């Protein structure tokens, strides 16, 4: 590897033959999946040979090679986790798209909202219901109603967060 780093291309085949199985074994151990390990090995070897001219010949060649391979395995693992997360999203939306699922979700949401509203002051609940036209609007000036509504929404948010841990 030192010879190749110094530009001696005759050492290329020997370095490749030594590194390929080594990096592949390392990636298999890290990723525990043959296909992923082969992908990571390919990218790792390409990066490794690209950066080889910068390799400090006084350093540990094996350690350096495995560090490059480790970084590549981690990147691949991270990418796949992300891909799995994003590929789950369309499935979730498909499930909600069906009418039955949607009505169940709506019922659950309504029940959850009812529980939260039960913990709030009746005046706040009255204001919120008046806002969505489910109760008569109190006889107060517009700005006063808006102020009450703002406070009621804030309290609803706080109560929801306290019960379910999210907005």
């Amino acid at each position, binding site marked *: 590897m030192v*010879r*190749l*780093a*110094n*530009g*001696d*291309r005759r050492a*290329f*085949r020997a370095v*490749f033959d030594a590194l*390929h199985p080594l990096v592949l074994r390392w990636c298999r151990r890290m990723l525990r999946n043959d296909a992923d390990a*082969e992908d990571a090995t*390919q990218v790792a*070897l*390409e*990066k*490794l*040979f*690209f*950066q*080889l*001219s*910068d390799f400090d010949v006084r350093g540990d060649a094996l350690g350096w090679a495995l560090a490059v391979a480790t970084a590549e395995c981690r990147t691949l693992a991270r990418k796949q986790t992300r891909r799995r997360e994003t590929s789950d999203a369309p499935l979730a939306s498909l499930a909600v798209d069906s009418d039955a699922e949607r009505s169940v979700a709506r019922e659950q949401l309504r029940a959850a909202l009812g529980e939260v509203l039960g913990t709030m002051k009746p005046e706040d609940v009255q204001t919120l219901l008046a806002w969505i036209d489910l109760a008569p609007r109190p006889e107060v000036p517009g700005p006063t109603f808006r102020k009450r509504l703002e406070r009621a929404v804030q309290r609803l948010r706080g109560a929801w967060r306290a019960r379910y841990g999210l907005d």
Partner: protein
Amino acid sequence: MDSTDLLRRARFSYELGRLRVALPGLAAAAALVAYVLNRPHQSQAPLLAALLVVGALGAGLWRRASARAVLPGLAAGLVPLFVPALAMRAGMGCGLRDCTTLCLVSCLAGGIVAGGVIAWRSTTLAEGRRAFLAVAGAVGTLAGALGCLEFGAFGLLLLVAGFAVILSPTWVLAPRPAAA
């Protein structure tokens, strides 16, 4: 992907990596050449310029020792490139027979100074000193030749002599590379 394909891709990546190492020297040589060719120049200057650019690229791609010699070689070559021009501008009378000697001497002196800079720089290297001296000397000579070309073949000869006076003994005294 089979092993042969991966081998080919790894080889390509390696050559790309070497090209990346060669790029700073190549860019500096190209900039120098662009500067020289944008000014009034001798008809042989484009040939020397092409040799300089190709040499910088080749040295950058070849070995690590040769790649790191390109920039110091170019920097040292600036001395013989500009000293004769400065001598002319300073009114030393190049063109008049008596004073032409001074301009020729500036090529010799430029070569000696540039050779000295390269020799001094080589002493900081732990290995690859001979390759460094050879490549930096060649690149410096080519860069300097773009300036001394104004004074014809004799100017070039003095420039080469200036480099050789310093670099030859340094090269002989430098430790031989260890057998691979």
